[in-house]
């Protein structure tokens, strides 16, 4: 069997990333879009950790911890916005959120 190399992890991360992008681009539900963003961030984290392993130092892991903190903040703020929006418009569908056009 082929030994598992960095590239394997990168491909998995790329797949996760693309799936996240698809979610962001196609789903209507804002909650799912936020979840897809989490997917994207996770893909990035996976890359970082894989590179950390590749180079043999821990900076990538530290960065992934920072990104995790970021993702937590993003989730909190994003969901806060979502709830505030839901209170006003009673929808979480992203294509009904187009006020920026006007």
């Amino acid at each position, binding site marked *: 069997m082929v030994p598992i190399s960095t590239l394997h992890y990168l491909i998995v991360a790329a797949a996760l990333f693309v799936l996240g992008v698809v979610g962001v681009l*196609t789903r209507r539900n804002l909650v799912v*879009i936020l979840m897809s963003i989490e997917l994207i961030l996770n893909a990035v984290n996976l890359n970082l950790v894989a590179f950390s392993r590749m180079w043999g130092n821990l900076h990538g892991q530290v960065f992934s911890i920072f990104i995790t903190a970021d993702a937590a903040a993003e989730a909190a703020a994003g969901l806060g916005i979502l709830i505030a929006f839901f209170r006003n418009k009673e929808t979480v569908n992203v294509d009904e959120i187009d006020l920026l056009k*006007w």
Partner: protein
Amino acid sequence: MLFLNHVYLLPIVPAVGAAVMFFFGRRLRKIAIDTVCIGVIVVAFLFACVTVAEYSSFAHGTGQAFEKIVYTWLGSGDAQLASAMNGGAHQTFNADAGFLLDPLSCVWLLFVTGVGLLIHIYSTGYMAHEGGYYRFFGYMNLFMFFMLTLILANNYMMMFVGWEGVGLSSYLLIGFYFHRHSASSAANKAFIVNRIGDVGFVLGALTLFYYLGSFRFTDINALARSGRFSIGDPVLSAAALLLFVGACGKSAQLPLYVWLPDAMEGPTPVSALIHAATMVTAGVYMVARSNAIFVLAPGAMKTVAIVGALTAIFAASMALVQNDIKRVLAYSTISQLGYMFLALGVGAFAAGVFHVFTHAFFKALLFLGSGSIIQAMSGEQDMRNMGGLKDKIPTTHWTMFVGTLAIAGIFPFAGFFSKDAILWQTWTSEGGAYRILWFVGYATAMMTAFYMFRLMYLTFYSRVRMSPAIRDKVHGLSKSMTAPLVILALCSLGAGWLSWPQSLGGSARFEHFVEPVFAHEAVVLEHAGKSGQVSAGEKEAQHTDKAEYLLMILSLAAGAAGWGVAHNAYRNAGKDYAEPIAQKLPRLYGLLYNKWFVDETYDYVFTGRRKLGNVTLGALGVGEAASWFDTKIVDSAINDVGWVTRAASTLSAWFDRWIVDGLAVRGIAYLTLPFAYVARLFEWGLVQWYALIMVAGLIGFGVYYVWK
């Protein structure tokens, strides 16, 4: 030297109290508020005492200033301004957060914290049942912070911070009962009038910077004393006059005194602390601080002296007939401030400063006493409804009696010494050039004695005139209110002894203490042949002539005379007693009673709130005139032009519709449409579209880097 080195912490101490009050005060209980607010003032007082002690061992009596510069808080960085003098050197426009300690600021430091502490303690009793208790003490602490900043500042800009700050806290405290219309408009008045003075201050300070290239007192003094400037230098004179305008505003001198009587709308402790003892003397402090400049501007000095003397007698005259107990004291304050400026103006800086010092004690005492009376009378302020309170509130009575004796200049109370020094200096200065001012001052002294004893008699001695309902409610006062009164009374008695004149066998310690600050100016003046204006201590050593004793006796006699007249007139004042002035000189009484119609005149002339016939002057007048000009002249011109335009536009409309719109605009618009569609793709308002664009960008980047 621990405390001296960290003197910058001194103003911070009350600021901490203020901060605590503003952030948490609402939730604290009274005892906690008391602990915090009184606590910080106690700390500040002890701090001040230790600092002064350390300073005196630092200076060894040489009066060498201690300067501590923490950092530069206001500056132009490296940008430089050319200063006119100072060799045309390029100076950076920098103001430090710096602190200066010399005998002058020591004096202020001690009595501001000391009197402030007593008044804080008094306030715990006085304000005990008022709403916004924490707010009051927060403001008071804030005031202490700014006042200490003002005192300790080492440059004009820093001082200006304190200067504006005390103005702000004064505004807040006058308007403390903000729900009362009179209080809020009084606060506004004080603020606005002060702004006029502040303009003078800022202009003066900037002029000095322009001319001398620094804001620091030490630099400015050094330059002024370097002998490079001739006496009567026009720019320095202008700067001195501008600074004096500032002093006029803050210290309520003619013609900017009008805010001070109205400021009595604030709680009485505020009147005592800010509008009698400390803040209003800031002008005096500033002028004394700038003595080096003033000495080089004899014209400004004369102005100061004359304005001071006029203010003194003018305010005293109004105080003669006022019925509101606090207003009497307010006018008295203005009058006494006039005295101080008189002293400064004639060059007797030390005497003026000494009067500030003694005045702080007895005026605070009198105000607090009046506050106690008002408290005891359940808020009544009109003396016509008082009388016979002597036995009801004995402590207040005898302490106020001491205060009255002090302000009336009866030997050996504090006022006697300071007032006597001023009068004596006035008499002798410039070889007697100012003797006319002496007469003014003397008359003022007599009037002072009269109205103060009038106040005493009407409140304490004469027949009981209050309504029975109030009479039954008259009550004694809490310890926290009487204790400060007693302490202040002792100070009013003893403060004068610090400067027991040499002519009476004393040593004038006080004058010697502050002398170093002014010593150089004495030399300058002497050099200029104006030998009268020397600091008191030195001069007394030189001239101990009989005139001084004569003047002392005369001023004692003035006090006694005022007392006597008041005694006769009000000893038995009943329900409908008669004012002696009203009987003898009814028209003058009317004039005085209406405060010389100054407020009305200001309304006519400056604000325009009152109309002179059909004509409105002042600010409103200007506004109305501008409005008239605008509607009548400008608008009609515009209308006429408009008619012409309309005619022209009819013509142009045709051209517009067919040529411009048809050809140019629509044609171009149709051309734009395809391009606009592309642009629109970027502003669709859909989140996912933006995300798509981001992805497109990502792909672009990727493609670029892969195939680079």
